[in-house]
């Protein structure tokens, strides 16, 4: 059976998982170190590929007062590291239908009134494992620059780490999601090439050809589709 392996001859190091000390080889991710020590990980794991945001973690390093954050599936253990998963961070989420909101710009302040209360501490930006300038995105949203939000937050994995730090009790990633959706659904014009094609499909332009293909024998179909 396939197994994730540490390199042969890897150095053994001490780490603290949920406050308990363990010895693990260097070269494992935080999640792999948990497996290595026999932990079953179900909450706090999703894609294992750095995109789903299920595996948010906090850690400290010896002799350093700072609290670090990371995605546990993408971060390697280091000597002396003490870490815990934050599998779920409670978050407030607004209820809306993006297609029928009367005024998406105003809607932001009705749905997320706290979005105007940023105190500029920048903790959200510092914590973001994706390197997003979260603080700027919050201001862009508040000033109605939804296009700016869309550009600056595209790589957000919705891990919620920014929420854990915000002194204004915001959920910056939810605000960003709202702004991106409003931009895509309500500000950007519907793409012409798509509209054109949808109309053509609805008016039956391709029905005859598709119908014809479906009545061909397998040999005929192969002939017809075989040529590039």
């Amino acid at each position: 059976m396939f197994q994730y392996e540490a390199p042969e001859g890897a150095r053994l190091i001490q780490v603290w998982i949920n406050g308990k000390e363990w010895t693990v080889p260097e070269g494992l991710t935080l999640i792999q170190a948990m497996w290595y020590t026999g932990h079953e990980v179900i909450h706090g794991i999703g894609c294992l590929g750095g995109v789903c945001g299920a595996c948010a973690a906090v850690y400290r390093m010896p002799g350093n007062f700072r609290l670090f954050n990371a995605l546990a599936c993408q971060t390697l253990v280091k000597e002396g590291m003490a870490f815990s998963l934050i599998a779920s961070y409670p978050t407030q989420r607004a209820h809306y239908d993006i297609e029928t909101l009367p005024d998406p710009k105003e809607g932001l302040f009705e749905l997320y009134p706290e979005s105007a209360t940023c105190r500029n501490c920048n903790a959200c930006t510092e914590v973001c494992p994706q390197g997003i300038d979260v603080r700027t995105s919050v201001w862009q949203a508040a000033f109605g620059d939804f296009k700016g939000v869309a550009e600056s937050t595209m790589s957000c994995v919705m891990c919620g780490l920014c929420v854990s730090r915000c002194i204004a009790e915001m959920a910056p990633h939810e605000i960003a999601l709202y702004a991106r959706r409003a931009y895509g659904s309500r500000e950007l014009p519907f793409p012409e090439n798509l509209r054109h094609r949808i109309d053509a499909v609805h008016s039956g332009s391709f029905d005859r050809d598709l119908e014809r293909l479906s009545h061909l024998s397998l040999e005929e179909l192969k002939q017809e589709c075989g040529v590039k």
Partner: protein
Amino acid sequence: MTPSTPYDHLPEFDPTEPVKIDPLDRKNLLDRYYPDYRTDHKSTLMVGPNAGDIVPDEIAEILQSRSLLGKGRSNEIPAQPDIEVDLLIIGGGGAGMTAAIFAQESGARVLLATKLRVGDSNTVMAEGGIQVALGEDDSPVQHFKDAYRGGHFTGDPELLSVLVKEGPDIIGWLIRKGVLFDRDPTGNLSLRKGGGTTRHRLISAKDYTGLEIIRVLKEDLLNSGVTIWEFSPAVELLQGPEGSCAGAILRDVDNGSLKWVKAKSVLLATGGTGRLHIGSFATSNHFGATGDGLVMSYRLGARLVNMESFQYHPTGVIYPSEMAGMLITEAVRGAGARMFNAHGKRFVPELETRDVVAAAIIRECEEGRGVRTPSGHSGVYLDLTSIDRDMGEGTVARRFPNIVKLMGKHQVDCTVQPILVYPTLHYQNGGVSVDVSGHTSIPGLYVAGEVSGGVHGKNRLMGNSLLEVFVYGRRVGLIASQESSARKPFSWHEVSLGHVSRFEADLEKEFPGTPLSEAPVLFPDYRKHPDNTMA
């Protein structure tokens, strides 16, 4: 001591063009080295609707397996179900989420049960994009032809026809929900070229296509009123009158309790099988991709198709070992990346089809021309530096920022160093046999997404599976909810696990006294056990 790495002694890379492959060599190469065509690690199924089919050992093991519920379960059926719904959807990836939103809108009472959180799936990981025929020179008909040819003429024409025809409409739905696909300067959707297609037809959201879609759909799903049970994988389907499906048993992973669901329609959307590590390959798939839907439906008598056919993506990371299986997109070879064996020689035209490139890499490694990794595997070099040399300094960083970022986190600077790759188990081509309405051979049981089989035949082209997930998610979600209201009422007393007992009796006959695995697998186990050392 720092362990030695494959970067300690890089060979000199010889840029000489690799030799072209003629059709006969191609066939020989595939037959000898592509896992699907090889005869090792294969078993013939002895029990169930596909008895006689030859499939990989790992697939045979989960299909011919015992129930997780253990013995003596038949008297355990509770007096009442825990919940009764019109439509039970099993699996919260792209297909399940789409089905749930549409079914709920159509008025059905819907329960969506999923293994991890909603959206933790293969769908969220999709990078490349979705095929939809929008170009002036393109049409759904052309899309059909490319997909049919790409599937080596083994796809189901009817399923394909629906896929290409309903494609544009469902993309429109995603856009109205606020999904931000890349646009060209005129505001049209940008169309890129994907492997095996004759037209520019791939739409994407940078290299975050799946993530962007899941973020949006998840928010609407959570707001939709659909009942959602997370961390509640299905472990068995329930049988109703006349061999129909009547619901499922879910297991709450936090307290181990079983939840009995009575449903007029059941839609399986449990996705793929990468985490079974067929042939011991690493995988690009999410943690929950263990083929559970195949196991449960097979026990109930559903027929499967093309279960011998899988897609091994040629360029998965093999070193550093903690990244094993992670995908390096095909686009890097499109941009001019080259591959070298341990002797620094190119060994296959880099723009050959996925299966040929994968087979060639396996050949190099099996014949001793692979690069050994410290954990004892082999791979070949995928060198991106030629991209910068050909197209100008900084091209790699600009076009593939995500790869540069992820590799960088693991101390590989792929703008100056090659990446070590080996094929990774990526996609299940086959699955539960369906018609254009998502019907299986079992009344009341519907299937959508990667767990289904037929539409792509024995090979899927990049971008067609995401399209399938949304087209069929909507379609089957609506049909399953409509047909649930037309279904003849049945009582809880008619519900049983008779199919499981019968299946296990057949197993006992065929494999007397043999210890068999239990399935569905639910979660792969990478923990270090006394008999399973990791270091």
